């Protein structure tokens, strides 16, 4: 009986030594997972995922506090790519969240009073204007995060869905003739 305990103790000691030495030799700093997750997120900084921006949401996912399907602008495709990166099962978008078509904010010039509240609210500085001067949104830089709508006192900002034109028109998925014939 004693020899059994001695043998197991000996094996434990030897392996413990090897592992101790290995953990020192293979010290490794944290791996850049957060940047990889951040690269997938659409960077609209809209906060619909419950975090103040895409970077905090990425850190939360890396730490495992946040689920991968809380980002509506990313849509189902974004969730799938996050699932593939983290090697987990892809999930549908969270409850109550659906991916709206991409849209851009437009300021109605004749009601804007130039109060600069929306300029401070815009996460990507896409609004140009000064106190008591006319404000305008640079359409190419607006991410459609709708953060400038609440602070506007005169509600002169409206969201406009990006229309399909000759440049961004996409070829459709060819309809499977057979399915239609069935």
């Amino acid at each position, binding site marked *: 009986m004693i*020899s*059994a305990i001695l*043998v*197991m103790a000996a*094996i434990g000691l030897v*392996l413990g030594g090897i592992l101790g030495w*290995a953990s020192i030799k293979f*010290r490794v700093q944290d*791996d850049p997972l957060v940047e990889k997750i951040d690269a997938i997120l659409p960077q609209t900084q809209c906060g619909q995922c419950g975090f103040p921006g895409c970077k905090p949401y990425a850190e939360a996912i890396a730490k495992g506090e946040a689920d991968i399907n809380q980002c509506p602008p990313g849509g189902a495709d974004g969730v799938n790519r996050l699932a593939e990166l983290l*090697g987990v099962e892809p999930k549908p978008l969270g409850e109550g969240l659906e991916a709206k078509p991409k849209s851009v904010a437009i300021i109605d010039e004749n009601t804007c009073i130039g109060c600069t509240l929306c300029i401070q609210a815009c996460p990507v500085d896409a609004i140009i204007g000064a106190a008591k001067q006319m404000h305008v949104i640079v359409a190419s830089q607006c991410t459609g995060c709708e953060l400038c709508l609440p602070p506007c006192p005169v509600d002169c900002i409206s969201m406009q869905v990006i229309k399909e034109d000759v440049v961004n028109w996409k070829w459709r998925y060819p309809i499977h003739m057979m399915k239609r014939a069935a």
Partner: protein
Amino acid sequence: MENYLLILIGTVFVNNIVMSKILGLCPFMGVSRKLETAIGMGAATTFVLTLASGASYLVDTYLLGQDLAYLRTLSFIVVIAGIVGFTEMFIKKSSPVLFRVLGIYLPLITTNCAVLGIPLLNVQEQHNFLESLFYGLGGALGFSLVLVLFAAMRERLEAADVPKPFRGVSIAMITAGLMSLAFMGFAGLIR
């Protein structure tokens, strides 16, 4: 020398760990979603299994001997856990990508029944040190070969419009079954 070659061919093709002995199925199903992860897992398992079968032979002959035979399974598992821990740190250092993609399945090598099964089979068939090393290597190579081929098949299956109830793991199970049917061709190869 010819005997070792025979052991190697025998364990890789004829009584393949996964296909004929149906061992090590959970990593086989779990890690075979993408080809790169499968190759990584195959390499890790081969490293662990070869070391483990060598170490477990030493532990069995020199430490346990006849009277402590009942400690065999316990000591083998401890040895395997040690080696897997070492491998885990090594992979975390050498390629963090592979480490993250393998995820839970890397520590799970410890619980892979093939990894524990082969040392026990070594003891059962009274292999000497070199034979058990080759047996371990052969078993692991067989596992990796089948795992990599299966991963390539599953990647192609991903895009097939399999009928709804059979999507995902169930068609993978059927494919694994048909693979073992194919491997039956090797039955009786080594007299």
